């Protein structure tokens, strides 16, 4: 493989604690190395910014609900199609881009690793088929466990060994990466037309509470020593006053110590916290509780969060939180898709317009940014839009601009139709903090990589790590106009994926050699779980067990992370 040397770039790399020093980065055989031979191709990065490839910890980019979004929203694709080129296929869509566009757009922004945040096990094959069709980026997918009948029954009976054996089996069977929990119990309750709106609401029939589900899965995760922690979207998403439920959820992890060999320090990740930081008791007195939520996060080092920033676009909401999507369609009267995934989860989709003229939308926008600005530890606070729920991932550069420029935030705040009301319900106007490039690298590279247990592999520029390297045409010391930030981070000049140059002068020149990460967690043989799985498939599932497993040929270039217990 070829050698490269990226010369004289201004490097920001939290992994090696390089804070904006001019430095050369060497690449050989797909890895970062200390030095290269004189034959190495040289790229001049003078006056430019060099970072590791960015790591996406939570996005909905592959699988049945993403595809149903594409299917039922032809209008999302209207006037967006780009014809194929020499190295690219035809690509289109805005909030739910095609798989190809997903790969290209992430790569162009300098993202090289992306986690699909909700894989319904029954449809895991579909998820992997789409992952296979998403070029360039490495991907993994989180199967959902929070509304699973096996999990409910084993936890109810206090059978921790069985829980772990089932988790191990399901990760292996679906080629999954981590334990995802969405509206624990609530999505199952939706099958009865109900919901769990606090973490102590019992699930109908199973008589287990969301708190018990989350605590049980957290315990299993740490006993098993998985690379990532449990990844949670708690109950009561999107409702005024829900920050109390959010804090109740956070407290489940209080004092628990991490156990793993992957350098992960958290035991609990909460996703799209913006949707969970609401005060007030109605849309009329709806307000931000970002400070209260972040005070807790700041003082509890065993947890991480991602933001779920609202980008003020027309987008498509989609979640395994079925009851929430029903609630949303009754609010905005737009089309609604709803699916029950037998024994495992529910799912819903509704288009949504985050209109800056609407007070609630502008407050949601402010909350997402406040969370980041209140954070005392950028290594535990990651930038996301819960793509496509709060906005498309292609807007990340715009979020960077807002986080890095008080001026751009003030202009937005003043421009809102309900400016005074938005300012009264939030504190964003008084936060003059500006995230710097080093903190950005923590929030988008080193932080998420560490939380995923990938800290020695990606998200950094230490010798021996994968050579995922990005060059942006921007100089932190010389920014005159905040728009330059959005422009530069939208279009990296060069992107290396595992040592292969995939973006050159802003153009996709290679489809790389994308990998699919999955976790093989070894547990002792457990005949009871084996028998239970057989029984459930005989009695309840509408598919045969043999048609359930994601066999190897479904998985694009698998990269197995083995966990010995």
């Amino acid at each position: 493989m070829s050698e490269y040397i990226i010369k004289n770039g201004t490097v920001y790399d939290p992994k090696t604690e390089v804070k904006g020093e001019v430095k050369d980065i060497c690449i050989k055989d797909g890895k970062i190395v200390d030095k290269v031979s004189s034959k190495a191709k040289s790229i001049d990065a003078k006056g430019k910014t060099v970072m590791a490839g960015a790591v996406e910890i939570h996005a909905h980019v592959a699988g049945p609900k993403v595809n149903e979004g594409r299917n039922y929203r032809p209008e999302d694709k209207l006037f967006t199609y780009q014809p194929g080129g020499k190295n690219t296929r035809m690509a289109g869509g805005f909030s739910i881009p095609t798989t190809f566009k997903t790969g290209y757009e992430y790569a162009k922004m300098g993202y090289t690793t992306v986690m699909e945040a909700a894989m319904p096990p029954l449809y895991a094959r579909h998820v992997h088929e789409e992952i296979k069709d998403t070029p360039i980026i490495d991907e993994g997918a989180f199967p959902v466990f929070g509304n699973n009948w096996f999990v409910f029954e084993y936890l109810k009976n206090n059978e921790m060994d069985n829980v772990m054996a089932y988790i191990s089996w399901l990760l292996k069977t679906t080629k999954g990466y981590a334990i995802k929990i969405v509206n624990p119990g609530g999505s199952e309750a939706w099958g009865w037309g109900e919901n769990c709106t606090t973490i102590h609401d019992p699930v109908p029939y199973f008589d287990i509470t969301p708190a018990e589900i989350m605590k049980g899965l957290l315990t299993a995760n740490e006993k098993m020593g998985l690379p990532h922690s449990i990844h949670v979207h708690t109950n009561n998403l999107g409702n005024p006053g829900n920050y109390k439920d959010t804090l109740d959820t956070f407290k489940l992890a209080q004092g628990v110590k991490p156990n793993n060999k992957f350098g992960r320090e958290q035991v609990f990740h909460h996703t799209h916290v913006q949707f969970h930081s609401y005060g007030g008791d109605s849309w009329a007195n709806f307000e931000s509780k970002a400070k209260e939520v972040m005070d807790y996060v700041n003082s509890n080092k065993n947890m991480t969060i991602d933001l779920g920033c609202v980008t003020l676009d027309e987008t498509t909401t989609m979640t395994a939180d079925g009851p929430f999507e029903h609630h949303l369609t009754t609010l905005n009267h737009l089309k609604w898709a709803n699916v029950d995934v037998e024994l495992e989860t529910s799912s819903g989709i509704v288009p949504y317009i985050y209109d800056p003229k609407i007070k609630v939308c502008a407050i949601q926008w402010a909350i997402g940014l406040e969370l980041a600005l209140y954070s005392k530890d950028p290594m535990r606070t990651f930038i996301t839009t819960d793509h496509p729920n709060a906005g498309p991932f292609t807007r990340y550069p715009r979020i960077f601009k807002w986080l890095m420029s008080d001026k751009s935030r003030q202009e937005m705040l003043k421009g809102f139709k309900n400016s005074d009301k938005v300012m009264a319900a939030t504190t964003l106007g008084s936060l003059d903090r500006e995230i710097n490039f080093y903190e950005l690298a923590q929030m988008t590279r080193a932080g998420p990589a560490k939380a995923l247990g990938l800290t020695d592999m990606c998200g950094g520029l230490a010798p021996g790590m994968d050579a995922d390297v990005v060059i942006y045409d921007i100089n932190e010391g010389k920014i005159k106009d905040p728009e330059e930030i959005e422009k530069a981070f939208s279009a990296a000049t060069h992107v290396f994926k595992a040592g292969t140059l995939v973006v050159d002068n802003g153009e996709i020149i290679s489809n790389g050699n994308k990998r699919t990460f999955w976790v093989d967690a070894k547990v002792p043989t457990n005949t009871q779980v084996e028998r239970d799985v057989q029984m459930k498939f005989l009695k309840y599932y509408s598919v045969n067990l043999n048609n359930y497993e994601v066999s190897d040929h479904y998985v694009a270039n698998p990269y197995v992370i083995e966990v010995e217990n």
Partner: protein
Amino acid sequence: MDTVKLTSKVVPELYLEAEHISPDVFAGKSNQEIGDLSVHMGNQTYKISDYFTVEGKAGATAAETKIVVAGDVSKVKYIGMKMTAGEVEVLGNADMYVGAWMEGGKLLVKGSVDSFAGIAMKGGELIIEGDAKNYIGAAYRGDWRGMQGGKIVVKGNVGSDVGSNINGGTIDIGGNADVHLATHAEGGTIIVRGIAKGRVGGQMVKGDIYCLGGVERMMPSFKYDHTEEIELDGKKMNFQVYYGDLGERHGKKKGEIIYGKIYLTAAQPEGGEGATAVKSERKAKLSEKQLEQLATELKEMKEPSVQNVREYIKKTFGIDLKPMQVSRLIDSLSR
């Protein structure tokens, strides 16, 4: 105002997609530049000059530009798409998407058009002197934002799903309208001067539909409320006002529920009971003599399609049969 005249040289083998035929695109361009603009057929790209001669002169702005399209453009789509000002005049028939996403100016088609004319239109005037097919002034597939402003006039008949998802503007239909008129309407006005076939205003939450020739079969979810005198075309007329769609959610304004409204002329030409009693199609039958004439005609038609035969019966005998009846007639008469 300056005028560019496009004259069709060849009828395209397939269908030509010509969204650049718009005053906004032509304005400020030389005839050479206009001729070089792209058109698409299938997956191939061609130039306007491959299919049209370009004469006259474009104005400096869209508002100062008029485009006259002559020759056979019945297989050309997207004429006047997204136009915001100026004028387009098509002398014959045109294919789909005429004036789609139009925002201003005036677009006149002297002949008939196919489906999707004026979809998601926001402003301006679209006049079709002949007939128009389906989804006129409707929303793009999947979208919930149909016609939002401006005016569409169709002097002849229209097909199905016209004004679906309309939430503003006016559609004025001189002839009859096929089924599914104004489905899911949230505003706007539709006037049908002929007969509206049925399933009018399904899922409608707001808006006004005037059916001067009656509705063949009203939706059961619309309810007669009152009779009202309303001025239309400078004439005062009595209308029976129906509220609906009662199966849908409805907003409130000043404490009063807002409904979609269907207005039926109180006096009906055929008499009968109320406005909905247009001649019942169930009872429509051909006489012996008419059947004989039809049998002779069928022999002359090489491959009589249900649609053609139905049209023939409608034109010759003034009776609109259901497609199923026509299909049975063809079967029995050709045996």
